[in-house]
């Protein structure tokens, strides 16, 4: 597994070096669209037949406080990895915040079931290796729809692989505990699928083009997380009132985040 991951990482980094850039007038690059669409259809079938039914059963079996507890434990288990990325990004605030969160929630919060740290002002802060690569100056690359894992980009796919390798969680628990942590992760995925069922199902099953909607929503949200949206840089806002006389709709992708890529 480790060897495979390393080999994949090498290949992935090589891909990243040759990162795809958006075509003129587009705000994303999707050269693998045909293959991505096939994977998307596969993922939809998997969602219809497996993930959604399992998530609905999970949501009905467990009361909300229990589901929140599971989500908290999963979130707590992800903290060591965010601390490693915080160090790689030289983000001292995040390192301190998330280390304290981990210590407090693992103890006072009973193995992370509760989140007392949040009430002490230690808010949730995420970090992953895709973000580290972004901080280091890597570009987003092409949009990729991954089997099982869902939407991603070239940069974030490399990030996922590296995160799997550098996650210190394996060092903190005996090997016997790994099935438990994996089980919690799966339960957390089911919990999210249940909680966001309206949003996810309407995007997947009611959109005219669910592939394009998912791509758009994913990229917008990811760029926002990385501080690349108009929310972070107001000059990137699209102003539909600007030169209305000329034509506000001349370029359909003169978009809030276009200027930043």
């Amino acid at each position, binding site marked *: 597994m480790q060897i495979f991951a390393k080999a994949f990482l090498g290949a992935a980094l090589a891909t990243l070096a040759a990162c795809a850039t958006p075509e003129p007038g587009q705000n994303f690059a999707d050269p693998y669209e045909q293959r991505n669409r096939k994977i998307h259809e596969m993922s939809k079938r998997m969602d219809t037949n497996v993930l959604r039914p399992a998530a609905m059963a999970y949501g009905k079996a467990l009361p909300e406080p229990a589901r929140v507890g599971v989500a908290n434990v999963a979130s707590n288990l992800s903290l060591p990895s965010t601390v490693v990325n915080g160090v790689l990004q030289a983000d001292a605030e995040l390192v301190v915040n998330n280390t304290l969160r981990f210590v407090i929630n693992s103890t006072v919060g009973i193995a992370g079931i509760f989140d007392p740290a949040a009430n002490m002002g230690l808010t949730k802060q995420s970090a992953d290796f895709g973000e580290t690569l972004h901080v280091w100056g890597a570009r987003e690359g092409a949009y990729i729809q991954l089997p099982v894992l869902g939407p991603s980009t070239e940069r974030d796919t490399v990030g996922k692989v590296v995160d799997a390798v550098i996650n210190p969680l394996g060092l903190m628990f005996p090997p016997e505990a790994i099935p438990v942590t994996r089980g919690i992760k799966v339960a957390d995925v089911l919990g999210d699928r249940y909680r966001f069922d309206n949003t996810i199902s309407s995007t997947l099953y009611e959109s*005219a083009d669910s592939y394009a909607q998912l791509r758009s929503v994913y990229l917008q949200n990811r760029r926002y997380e990385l501080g690349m949206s108009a929310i972070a840089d107001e000059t990137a806002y699209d102003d539909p009132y600007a030169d209305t006389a000329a034509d506000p709709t001349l370029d359909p992708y003169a978009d809030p985040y276009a200027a930043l890529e």
Partner: protein
Amino acid sequence: MSEFIMTRRGFTVSAVAALIAPALPAFALDQAGASRLVGTVVDSINSVIASGKSEAAMIAEFERIFIQYSDVPTIARYALGVDARSASAAQMSAFTQSFTGYISRKYGKRFREFMGGRLEVQSAKPVKSFYEVRTLAHIPGSSPFDVTFLVSDQSGKDLFFNMFIEGVNLLLTERDEIGAMLDQRRGNLDQLIVDLKKAG
């Protein structure tokens, strides 16, 4: 990933606001006005949820709020994208009407998801020709998340024209969706106008 968030606090206030709002004099848009508009919209939506009406009645109420507080023609035009250029005035007006109903059904159906939540205005500042009002949404069981409204007075009234939920631009997302619907219909705008009456 939530569309509209309401504050329970606003229940009583909103009834009063509904009486006062039409009597307010027209004022130039400023920071306070922009925040106030967002507050009013949230309170109005809130009172619809609290009414306990049927889904169909709530959707009709939401459509009324959408028309009253947002710049529907600008939103519809943006959502149609390049095709708005070649559309006739009659098509544009028919599209705007169908689009309004579609948006109201699509988002109105999901009101209940946000019950018990509240929206806290964080800041309001001028950007380009409009105002950005940043809010924090608090929903039970979720970490607080960012919801940003864009408000403009370019239509002659203070109206909102876009909304971002954790960076997801609803105007842009709807333009992608309307574009996909048009593609499915080989660019036939008249067909889209008819179909939108049932969509959402």
